[in-house]
């Protein structure tokens, strides 16, 4: 077994270098021999986060694993770099997304029923291309419409590990 300091730095460097979140399994697989246990890895991640306490970044857990990211609060400065800022979404886009997220699996027809307007196919196409939404099956009704659901990547994007972390809906008294 490598010494602990080494393990810590290897895991840190893997998280730094990876483009995608790494699962505990991915991290264990970095080692050909003497694979650390998942608990050991979790412990290392905790320790790393402690040593990042005063830094601008941290390790967080999202749906598909762990990733290292800049803490919130720096957006004011960082909005100026990485110019591709497609970060503002239209009302129609967000409404379609939340209906899929909260009511999944849903068909296009379900979304139209709730919103009262035809769904812009470009919005669904974008959601599928971002890999935020995928087709999980077909409803056994005439036309066999596609059933849409959100993906883990959607959760990753919104810094969540599970759908239960979505903001809770307002309780509206239905009479």
């Amino acid at each position, binding site marked *: 077994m490598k010494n602990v300091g080494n393990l810590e730095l290897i895991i840190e460097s893997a998280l730094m270098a990876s483009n995608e979140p790494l699962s505990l399994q991915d991290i264990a697989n970095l080692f050909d021999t003497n694979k650390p246990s998942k608990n050991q890895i979790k412990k290392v991640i905790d320790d790393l986060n402690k040593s990042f306490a005063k830094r601008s970044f941290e390790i*967080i857990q999202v749906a598909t694993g762990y990733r290292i990211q800049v803490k919130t609060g720096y957006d004011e400065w960082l909005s100026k770099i990485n110019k591709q800022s497609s970060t503002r979404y239209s009302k129609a886009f967000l*409404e379609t997304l*939340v209906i899929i997220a909260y009511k999944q699996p849903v068909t296009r027809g379900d979304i139209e029923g709730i919103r009262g307007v035809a769904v812009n196919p470009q919005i669904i196409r974008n959601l599928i291309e971002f890999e935020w939404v995928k087709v999980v099956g077909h409803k056994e009704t005439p036309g066999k419409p596609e059933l849409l659901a959100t993906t883990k990547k959607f959760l990753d994007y*919104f810094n969540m590990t599970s759908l239960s972390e979505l903001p809770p809906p307002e309780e509206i008294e239905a*009479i």
Partner: protein
Amino acid sequence: MIQTNSDQLEVKINGSVITDIPDDLFIPPDALRVILERFEGPLDLLLYLIKKQNIDIVDIPILPITKQYVEYINMMQQLEFELASDYLVMAATLAEIKSRMLVPNEIEDEEEDDPRANLIKRLLEYQKYKDLSVKIDEVPRLNRDTFVISGILANFKRKETMPTIKMSQLQEAFHEVLKRAEINASHNIQTETLSVRERMSKILDEISKQETISFIDCFDFNEGKMGAIVTFLAILEMVKENLIDIIQNEDFSMIYLQTRTI
């Protein structure tokens, strides 16, 4: 001066808030388009009308709401907007509810037979998702609130194999692109001048390496007349697309190409 405010959806004309639109008021069609585009559909428009009157969704006074809704629709139609049919369907639904409420019910029914019930249910459900869409927009998300770190490895050589792509796949992808381009109509894809575009890339690459190159160096005389024409067209195209500047310090002196400066 016409302004709209996204939260309240007020329309201001010369500073005063317009809530009811007088019959004789001329509204520039562009302004109305702005109003219409603010609504995500008939339910959204209804919710707005309800909110504006400060009334409870669960007890909509169907008569005035229907009247206002129909006024909006008529106004939009008069101005010959292409109105989504969903708006008309809603107008019909409202008219039906109204007539059912006006006709006294033979049998004294219970509350649940309120002709408004279904509409109210839909409005409440839509309101719920509308609120959620505002909330999800506030959830910290990547590249706006948080930023993933992707450090580069010092000596990292990717050992991956190159993708295996067949020409037929490229062709297929290109057809897909053409279809899309048609949807996003403002773009027309020109392809007949591929050799020109290739030459544009080549010259740009040279310019970016050397900052400035002389006009004459762009031409390769071994290429013959066609090659010269392609090069010349490429230079003209780049000037047209504002990619480069052509510089000549004085008459009959050398002509240079350089990156465009503003």
